[in-house]
């Protein structure tokens, strides 16, 4: 059973057509020397569809979902409208390949063009590509784009950038001659001075994140200005839902913006598939990585869409390509497009506003707990840091038993922050959820 239509008779006749009369399928492999054949192939025998479903169901049941979730860290539990799932389940979308043949792929191509347009409208940038693997890879690709565009090789990276992305950046570039300057996380204004102290004629880019990993929001316009004076580019990793309210990368004169698109209608799915988006100023378009779709006219003057600027890409340029990417996350980009279409201009603002207000409510509730310090000096969007009177792991364990994922312990990535917890609140958390969480947190600490 391998989804093969042929009957035994079909196979025998087809074998005869190609000169194999024995009916032995293995003769098809006679060109491969005997001593190169597989030494083992010890795979269990196939099972029925029902049996496999039961096996997977049993494994699925060993995962606990449905925790009331206050964990974010760049990956958020937002509501996904049912129409998103229904539409991406159209097999004309999901069983197609990369749209190399435009006539047979206008559905995918127009959708990508609309996706690129939405990303541009969201971020204020001029051009977007068709997607990259995830937010971390997108940030790395942005750094490489800046290096190509400036001909320089020094990157200054803010400590508020998602620590997972920072690790990915260092991993990807470990064999390349790139100088990284890591600006440590500080909770005061002087981190700007630290950036400027390293900013020089060798600097390709400064990498920032807004809101940063701790949920803090900022205006980076002054940093952009200083960077541009030195001929360096500014890269900003952003959280798309926050752009319902927050100042856009373009309004801060950022050159390249990237981010994780998971919050736009893509399930958390234990880490993937996700959606790396990238948008930039127009002058960088010809150096961008990944597929890009452009609008054009066909032989009869009709509007049509094609993969464009393909001379940047590996299938044409090989080792001189702007990136090695081939398969991207097209179906996730389609999810994001459908989500943005359903939620619309007003809906995006409303989701962002709900996140903001509910987060404020959680901050107020939690700041009333004895000896819990809620950092309030800097405005936040939907995530904030609290300092607990003891190691958060103990609290997290207790709350998990009550069905609540309390937040992310910052000590995991920052050794100086052992007592800190990062709490995220999305529009899915109700007033009641937040109250129960706050009470459970208090009980875990003090009873």
């Amino acid at each position: 059973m391998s989804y093969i239509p042929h009957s035994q008779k079909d196979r025998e006749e087809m074998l005869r057509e190609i000169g194999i009369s024995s009916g032995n399928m293995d003769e098809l492999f006679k060109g491969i020397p005997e001593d190169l054949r597989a030494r083992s192939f010890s795979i269990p025998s196939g099972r029925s569809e029902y049996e496999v479903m039961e096996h997977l169901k049993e494994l699925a049941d060993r995962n606990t979902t449905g925790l009331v979730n206050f964990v974010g860290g760049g990956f958020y539990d937002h509501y996904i409208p049912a129409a998103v799932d229904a539409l991406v389940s159209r097999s004309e979308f999901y069983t197609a390949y990369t749209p190399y043949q435009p006539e047979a792929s206008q559905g995918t191509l127009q959708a990508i063009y609309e996706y690129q347009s939405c990303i541009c409208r969201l971020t204020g940038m001029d051009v977007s590509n068709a997607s990259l693997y995830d937010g971390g890879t997108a940030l790395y690709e942005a750094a490489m784009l800046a290096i190509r565009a400036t001909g320089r090789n020094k990157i200054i990276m803010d400590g508020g950038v998602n620590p997972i992305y920072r690790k990915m950046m260092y991993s990807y570039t470990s064999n390349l001659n790139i100088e990284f300057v890591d600006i440590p996380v500080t909770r005061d204004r002087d981190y700007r001075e630290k950036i400027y102290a390293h900013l020089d004629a060798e600097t390709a880019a400064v990498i920032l994140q807004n809101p940063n990993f701790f949920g803090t929001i900022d205006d980076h316009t002054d940093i952009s200005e200083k960077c541009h004076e030195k001929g360096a580019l500014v890269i900003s990793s952003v959280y798309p839902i926050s752009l319902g309210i927050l100042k856009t990368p373009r309004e801060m004169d950022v050159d390249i913006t990237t981010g994780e698109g998971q919050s736009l209608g893509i399930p958390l799915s234990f880490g993937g598939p996700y959606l790396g988006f990238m948008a930039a100023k127009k002058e960088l378009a010809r150096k961008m990585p990944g597929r890009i779709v452009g609008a054009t006219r066909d032989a009869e003057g009709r509007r049509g869409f094609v993969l464009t600027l393909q001379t940047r890409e590996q299938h044409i340029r090989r080792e001189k390509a702007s990136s090695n990417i081939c398969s991207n996350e097209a179906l996730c980009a389609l999810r994001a497009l459908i989500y943005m279409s359903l939620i619309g201009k007003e809906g995006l603002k409303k989701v962002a506003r709900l996140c903001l207000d509910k987060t404020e409510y959680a901050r107020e509730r939690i700041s009333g707990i004895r000896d819990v310090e809620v950092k309030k000096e800097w405005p936040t969007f939907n995530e904030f840091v609290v300092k607990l009177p003891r190691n958060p792991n103990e609290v997290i364990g207790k709350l998990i038993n009550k069905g609540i994922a309390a937040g992310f312990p910052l000590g995991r990535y920052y050794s100086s922050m052992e007592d800190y917890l990062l709490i995220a609140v999305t529009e899915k958390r109700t007033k009641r959820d937040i109250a129960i969480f706050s009470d459970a947190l208090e009980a875990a600490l003090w009873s």
Partner: protein
Amino acid sequence: MELIFEKSRDGRHGVKLPDKDVPAEGRVPARLRREKDAELPSVSEPEVVRHFTNLSKMNFGVDSNFYPLGSCTMKYNPKFTEKIASSEHFADLHPLQPQLIMGGMLTQGALEIISNLEKLLCEITGMDVFTTHPMAGAHGELTGVMLMAAYHRHKGNAKKFILIPDSGHGTNPASAAIAGYRIKTVSSDSNGVMDLEEFRRKIDDEVAGVMLTCPNTLGVFNPHISEICDLTHEAGGLMYYDGANLNAIMGKVRPGDLGFDIVHLNLHKTFATPHGGGGPGAGPVGVKEYLEPFMPVSRVVRRKDGTFALDYDKPLSVGYISPFYGNFSVLVKAYAYIMLLGKEGLVEASENAVLNANYLKEKLKKDYEIPYDSNCLHEFVVSAAKQAEKGVKALDIAKALINEGIHPPTVYFPLIVKEAMMIEPTETESRETLDSFVDIMKNIARMAERDPGKFADFPANMPVKRPDEVKAARDMDLAFTGTEKGAGG
């Protein structure tokens, strides 16, 4: 068809959102707010559904059309794996959950799937250890080359080059280059495999590794593969297996047995997970035991009590190449597919894929030139050079096939064949589909003889005909900036 933006009307909504239920009001200082709203479309749900349903109808997909796109393995994507992967116990699982105290115990099923899949892929390929982290084939290649670099750095080897045959996928040299290596290309010989004499001249102690597809993009198995592996290892290099073509050889040959050190697989090819219009894929990487210390973190490990955990403590690791564990829902689908097919089913899949390719090649060889006419495996390359003499190029044949409702083969690749058309039928196509394709290809060949001018009309029955790619690249209309009709103006 109108763009979604052109259907937008102020005041329309596609989703009913909850009302605010908290007394608090979050404040964002004015200087941190955006000045103008993001102009996302305002459309109702029925309009959104109709828009995207109609867009979907403008696509060819495997469910609706024969899709013999070479090197892409466009086989049927089973429906039950889609259903399994969408289970809320997978879809709603937060990837940071295992990093919380006790949280790992609440993701045991997911970790076990990763672990079981890694073991199955090891046995299928003859490798010792797998990582599921790479998110696409090219990402697997990059991971593989990073592994080579980490290994050579650890050994203190000074290596500069990667050798790649001229028939290799474009991602091979691109991946090697962005990982910091220079590329040396090796030509193909008259049989279509890497030229052994040229290879001998180019392999030396500055070569970090050799990247090969086997069978290669011509569908040809390299008979000198053992010798190539030996020569590379003698020079201190590593052998990299590009698994894009694994669908040819499951149960017949294992890259690990041949002497390869690193392989990547494309789960969205061989293991039947859908391509999604360009992605997501998954490109797991397998290595021999001695490269295990360099594998990306985290690693799924099994504790003594039988439970699964994540190990981040790997000082020699190449580090993080994915934020978490790879494209998890793709992994679930591939795992379910392998469980269903089992040993016999996987072998059958490869045998029938090879049968179908050879059957098509036999039937097409009278009408089309076949430059490397040895026994092919899962795919083969025909040349439209004969037709091009009449003015009918591979691209024209592709457009004529679209007119007949068939997705064209991969055209103009591999680069070593003039007017190349790379045909990979896969095992899930019926004999009737193959015969009908042959009839259509024969008709096209006849038409090329008699009426070459006719091809300019193709395709005549699609939403667009030969959109102007030069204009697209020149105008760079990459995002809709208006509110009414005007894109592509």
